[in-house]
């Protein structure tokens, strides 16, 4: 065991060490994830990406989730992957994907001691630590690092040691995301404590919510006032569902809840634990298509030019793909009535009606065994 500088975190403002550089041992610290305490050093055998960020670089935002998803996706054959996020004043986010088993349990750095041990004060920083606990790559500065650089760092030390490279790929890949608000690292601890206390007792405080979206379990930390639409877009990184009017008048936010088309802007995310939510991202898979094959309704919209600018299109397609299972008449006028809740400013209605009628006709043919 090497550096235990963070343990205890005694004097209020000890002189901060400089940040570790490549080749230095990574300062150890205690992680409390999902109520289980462990130490960074206990994660030896897996590389760790440690990210310290301020609120502007917030892993609960979709850009960071997208970045991490791409990062994870680009790593070869990670059989079991875990992401750990560390919040400063409040839990940030938990995501659990059934398919890839990626979780972001919440760890807290309330007193800023972890950030201090890494010499980080008011700028985001990234440390890539190898499976032996040695810092291999660092990035500090306001600009988020390119994920390609992180991947390059990881693969470089994996490739350097060929016999071990396959082992870490199959073992846990752990990215530890530390949320350290800039203001917190320079503020008295008392202020932090007060903010935590206020957040945990105020009406409307955030709590863990598990949503089943496109067949994956997403654990998000949400306030009650977060609409399903905002949860999908801003917390789960699923930006295919669009925000048009945000008042239930345009249909751009249409998703399926237990197979029924629903306006995600007029419902709170917390109301939908235990239900199956399908967004445009998961529509094709929900219909049983595989790979890159689009849902038949998506294909028909392309074929019939059922859009111009495309903004209303995810809502149109989600609405249309549910509508064909509802009791409506066969005429074009019936389709227009059934689709009246989806507004298109470009006026692509003729193509939309044609697309829907084609899918309905094909479905009817299929039922008749033709």
């Amino acid at each position, binding site marked *: 065991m090497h550096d235990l500088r963070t343990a205890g975190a005694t004097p209020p403002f000890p002189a901060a060490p400089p940040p570790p550089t490549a080749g230095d041992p990574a300062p150890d610290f205690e992680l409390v994830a999902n109520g289980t305490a462990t130490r960074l050093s206990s994660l030896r055998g897996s590389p760790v990406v440690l990210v310290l960020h301020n609120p502007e670089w917030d892993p609960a935002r979709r850009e960071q989730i997208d970045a991490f998803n791409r990062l994870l996706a680009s790593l070869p054959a990670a059989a079991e992957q875990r992401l750990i996020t560390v919040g400063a004043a409040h839990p940030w986010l938990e995501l659990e994907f059934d398919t890839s088993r990626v979780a972001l349990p919440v760890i807290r750095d309330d007193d800023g001691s972890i950030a201090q041990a890494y010499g980080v004060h008011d700028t985001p920083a990234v440390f890539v630590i190898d499976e032996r606990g040695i810092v291999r790559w660092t990035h500090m500065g306001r600009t988020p690092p390119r994920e390609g650089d992180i991947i390059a760092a990881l693969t470089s030390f994996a490739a350097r040691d060929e016999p071990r490279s396959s082992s870490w790929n199959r073992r846990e890949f752990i990215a530890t995301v530390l949320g350290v608000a800039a203001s917190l690292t320079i503020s008295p601890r008392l202020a932090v404590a007060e903010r935590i206390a206020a957040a945990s007792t*105020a*009406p*409307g405080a955030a709590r863990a919510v598990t949503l089943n979206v496109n067949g994956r379990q997403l654990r998000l930390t949400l*306030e*009650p*006032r977060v*609409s399903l639409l905002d949860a999908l877009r801003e917390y789960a990184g699923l930006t295919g569902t669009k925000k048009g009017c*945000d*008042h*239930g008048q345009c*249909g751009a936010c*249409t998703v399926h809840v237990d197979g*029924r*088309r*629903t*306006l995600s802007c*007029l*419902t*709170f995310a*917390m*109301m939908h634990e235990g239900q199956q939510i399908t967004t445009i991202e998961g529509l094709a898979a929900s219909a049983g298509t595989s790979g890159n094959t689009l849902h038949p309704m998506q294909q028909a919209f392309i074929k019939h030019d059922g859009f111009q600018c495309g903004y209303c299109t995810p809502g149109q397609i989600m*609405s249309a793909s549910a*509508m064909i299972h*509802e*009791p409506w008449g066969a005429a074009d006028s019936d389709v*227009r*009535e*059934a689709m*009246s*809740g*989806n507004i298109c400013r470009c006026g692509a209605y003729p193509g939309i009606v044609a697309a829907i009628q084609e899918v309905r006709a094909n479905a009817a043919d299929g039922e008749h065994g033709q």
Partner: protein
Amino acid sequence: MYPFQFESAASEQDAIALLGANPDARFLAGGTTLVDLMKHDVERPARVVDINQLSLTTVEEIDGGGLRIGAMVRNSDLANHPLVRERYPVLSQALLAGASPQLRNMATTGGNLLQRARCQYFRDVANACNKREPGSGCSALHGINRIHAVLGTSEQCIATHPSDMAVALAALDAIVRVRGAGGERTIPLVDFHLMPHDRPDRETRLEHGELIVSVDVPPLPFAKRSLYIKVRDRASYAFTLASAAVALDVRDGVIRAARIALGGVATKPWRVPDAESALENTSADGAAFGRAAELALSGAVAREHNAFKIELAKRTLIRALTRAAAIA
């Protein structure tokens, strides 16, 4: 949106207790009105009690031909229920004339009764509104009042009741069953909503802490000959300018009984008993329908922009009666 405490009710008793414990609490069912108005800061509940787990989701037969509609039955399910389509086409049609398919998938029977005014001054906190803020005045009286009511108004409020479903239920003599801490009681739907008078903020007879558990529709055999006509600015997906829910019992060309309610023109679902009795034992023809329409709108008071509604409502009613009489 202002923060609020979110509670999920596991049972009716639970829901009633959670609501009753906080005077600023609201039930949350489909959310299509409440969430919208919370985004506008028109509704600012301190506590929201989610009742979507309650099992008030069935449509059952009662009283030899009537239906008991659970408060949490979604508008789309109710509209497409075989017994509703067969026995009360006016109810199915009114539901399908309201909102959009997505909204109907969300909105509930109980929530539909409690949906709030679409008056643009009610929905905008920058304007005076006695319904939203008692005593602040009414911006609609001398504002753009094209969509406003001509029946049942007061000098405090001229907002229409926006529901189509409730207009059909008014014509069908529906009964609202509510449950509170003290037990259960029933309120006839025609008495459930209040006219504004000098308290437009009081919209129904529901007491705080009372939960709508069902809407009971009594048997009405001639309701098979019923329909709903809605006139609006667009072909679909718009609120009512004028609507009519009618059911006629016609035998040998003579009207034995009639049920008439109007929507879009009044401050509550507007049953018109005078017009109904005027039709009884008369021949089902245009002259009789015209007289009924005159009676139905006889008390109408127009404002600057909504006088057209009086004539529109008459014609809508005449057309509805004409079509109902033609149903075999």
